[in-house]
């Protein structure tokens, strides 16, 4: 099975451990990723904060490149990128005038036919039973709090993935791979997103609440599928500890980390050693 791959700036920047992890894990499940040639930034928060037309144009450019590359489906592991791409794809598919306008702006003909998937959807295409079959070392040690963040399931009418209030798609994978999952309440609360640099105390406040709730429900680690959430929950844990005097000490795994570990891949191949908070 091979699908298009839109890494997004984060995965080629400070969150390249996420890319390393998901490439290793997907290679083990023989899923070939073909990176979209000449992809550009999806505009993230900045574009839709300051310029609505730009927030459609940038994803439109990427969609046009994917269509030119002949990709029917495309993985966008970062929920911010996948939400922006899906939003643009839906707007383009439903509006002839917008298609003409955007094709003009991005200088490429765009039809809005590419289906954008997040990492969980790719694993779902691989299928639970294939994962169970390939299970080498069950994750008995993990008591994981699955954290979806705010953009993976929202806005529901755009993203149309799992349930926007009570998502359970990651739990399904983890229990299948032998891990224990925690029933906690902050699955879809926001971690502060793109405010890491712009307004640090926002991130610290929100992430602290998330980590506290996870700990309160007996989780010893979090599983995320978003580079920005990982930065805020993992890299900022020392700052949280400095500010609130609480050492959470929760390891923040990417979903591909845990799946990779279950498949028996070594931690170094998955880039787990490059996280800020290591195993106690």
């Amino acid at each position: 099975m091979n699908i298009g791959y839109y890494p997004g700036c984060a995965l080629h920047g400070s969150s390249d451990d996420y890319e390393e992890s998901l490439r290793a894990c997907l290679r083990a499940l023989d899923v070939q990723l073909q990176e979209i040639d000449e992809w550009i930034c999806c505009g993230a928060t900045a574009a839709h904060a300051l310029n609505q037309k730009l927030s459609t144009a940038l994803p439109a450019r990427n969609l046009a490149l994917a269509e030119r590359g002949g990709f029917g489906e495309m993985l966008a592991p970062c929920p911010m990128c996948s939400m922006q791409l899906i939003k643009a794809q839906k707007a383009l598919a439903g509006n002839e005038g917008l298609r003409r306008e955007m094709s003009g702006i991005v200088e490429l003909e765009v039809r809005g036919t590419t289906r954008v998937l997040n990492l969980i959807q790719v694993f779902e295409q691989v299928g639970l039973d294939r994962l169970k079959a390939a299970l080498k070392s069950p994750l008995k040690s993990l008591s994981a709090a699955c954290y979806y963040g705010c953009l993976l399931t929202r806005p529901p009418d755009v993203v149309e993935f799992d349930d926007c209030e009570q998502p359970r798609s990651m739990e399904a994978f983890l229990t299948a791979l032998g891990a224990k999952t925690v029933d906690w309440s902050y699955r879809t609360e926001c971690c502060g997103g793109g405010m890491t640099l712009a307004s640090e105390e926002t991130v610290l406040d929100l992430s602290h609440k998330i980590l506290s709730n996870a700990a309160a429900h007996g989780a010893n680690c979090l599983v995320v599928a978003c580079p920005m959430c990982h930065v805020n929950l993992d890299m900022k844990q020392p700052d949280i500890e400095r500010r609130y005097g609480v050492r959470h000490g929760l390891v923040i795994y990417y979903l591909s980390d845990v799946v990779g570990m279950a498949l028996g891949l070594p931690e170094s191949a998955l880039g787990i050693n490059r996280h800020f908070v290591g195993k106690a």
Partner: protein
Amino acid sequence: MSRIGVFICWCGENIARTVDVDALAQEVSKFPGVRCAMNYKYVCSDPGQALVREKIAAEKLDAVVIASCSPHMHLKTFRRAAQLAGLNPYKVEMANIREHCSWVHHDRAKATAKAASLIRLSVEKARLDHELQPIRVPVTRRALVIGGGVAGIQAALDIADAGYEVVMVEREPSIGGKMAGLSETFPTLDCSQCILTPRMVEVGQHPRIKLYSYSEVERVEGYIGNFTITIRQKARYVDISKCTGCGDCWSVCPLKRNKSEFDYGMGVRASIYVPFPQAVPARPVIDAKTCAKIIRNGCGLCEKKCKAGAINFQDTDKLVEEKVGAVVVATGYKLYDIGEKQDKASLAGYGEYGYGQYKDVIDSLQFERLLSASGPTNGVLKRPSDGAEPKNVVFISCVGSRDNAKGLPYCSKICCMYTAKHAMLYKHKVHDGQAHVFYMDIRAGGKGYEEFVRRAIEQDGAKYYRGRVSKITQEDGKLVVRGADTLAGVPITVEADLVVLAAAMRPADGVAELAQKLNVGYDEFGFLLESHPKLRPVETNAAGVFVCGACQAPKDIPESVAQASAAASKVAVTFAADELMREPEIAGINEQTCVACYACLRACPYHAIEQAEVRTPRGVFVKHTARVNPGLCMGCGTCVAVCPSKSADLEGFTEQQIYAMVESLV
């Protein structure tokens, strides 16, 4: 040649001002079939009607045309006048030369010419009017009440007290409906069971009320005055004639842990149970889904214990037929299911409140059971998770109601009142407890309602926040309710021990199917359609079928009872005469030329046409034909238009009349 009398009215000068009535009378008198034509200042006045009556006798008229206002105004008046003079009332026609002529055309010559043409139309129609007699339909003076809630009980008692037999069909093992499960009722806080149980007993013991409990309406045939109702008596596995209600069986039954539907899951019951102590009939029913004997032929203790030998595991559903003359639908309501799964595609659930995930998030009827003295906690307020006494209770109103995104844009009308009642009752039970209420608008329009809500706020110290709740999360044992107060414009977070959701009111399950059986309309949410919201609130467009209570729209107990009595009075009106009189302007089918293609039968909106056979006097089959049931036909005439061989015709608007009118316009 017919002898028609034309009476042209001046209507004071409303007509006379623009229509030259004298010239008109002259011209009309020359129309074919017109015996005499005259004009008078006020034909609808007593002297005017006297003139008409006198002319009918003097000129021996066989039809009358009144050229005046709209038939919607005075057709009945002039028909009665003609009847007094011995002329068949259906030989009277009206030409509307006021609204359709003098008031809208100011050119005198044109208005007069148009008036003449309109009168000519009515003369042509009058010439071909048939003498009709009102249709008499025999009435079975028995009423069917579907639903045993407070509305059904009130309707049944009123009808029975009026001297007519009533058949009541209740789907649950006992009557009482939702009200039986309430603790106390606003605004008087009198105990719900105390005011309802006597009425239930009255129903149980009323000589003229035949109660079918644990039964449903299977099929409805016939028409007003002559309904045939097939009732399915669901298998109860207990013979209520033999059973004395001693209770040995449900005390010996080993399976005590079944969720009690009456307590909405707050309490448990045995597999053989009586829903609540004051049940009418106070006889148990066996739950076939959990009883070990029925499932795998085990146990059977209750049968051994029963001294009256009333237990019968081989019991099956029985179909019973009842003949009734009128039907009152009082099927009540159910609460909107707050959880994820919805029974209709157009509805969405409330994932954000964690209902069904957090034990201490319950809906209003479950809270009623916790408050109720006969409830699972005997009136002591214990929260479902650990039974502790909740110190902080959050009440959230408009859960599902007024929410376009969830699919129910309407207001359920009673939640503001019972939420205030809950806050008040909670304070009375837990003196040091604090009630928090998130509301959008307080709707307390009834008698003493506003004062009741103010008392809950001012005396019982309930904190009211004006804003919706966005999310409920569980954090170290506490339910964190994140709401807002738009008056202050700030988010509000309350840590609660218990959260009560005031869920929206929806019609009871299965009302849509019942409506189709009764040929009654229902709206997009499933509430039954009344004939006219203001003028005929308890009637429906199916003759002889009345509605009352929450099945028609969300409403509280006082309104339901009032509507129930209204429905009962309508039933009494229907049974007043020993025969029902119906307008004779209905369709009829010429059975000689009908070729039984049944296009009319498919087109008739009232299912008033049935397949029939033409037989010779000695019973030899001649042919198939369509036949109109005079009781059901409302006279819309759709069958006449779809009949290819023009065998169907409509009295009062016969084909001959319409074509004669059109041809007179040449």
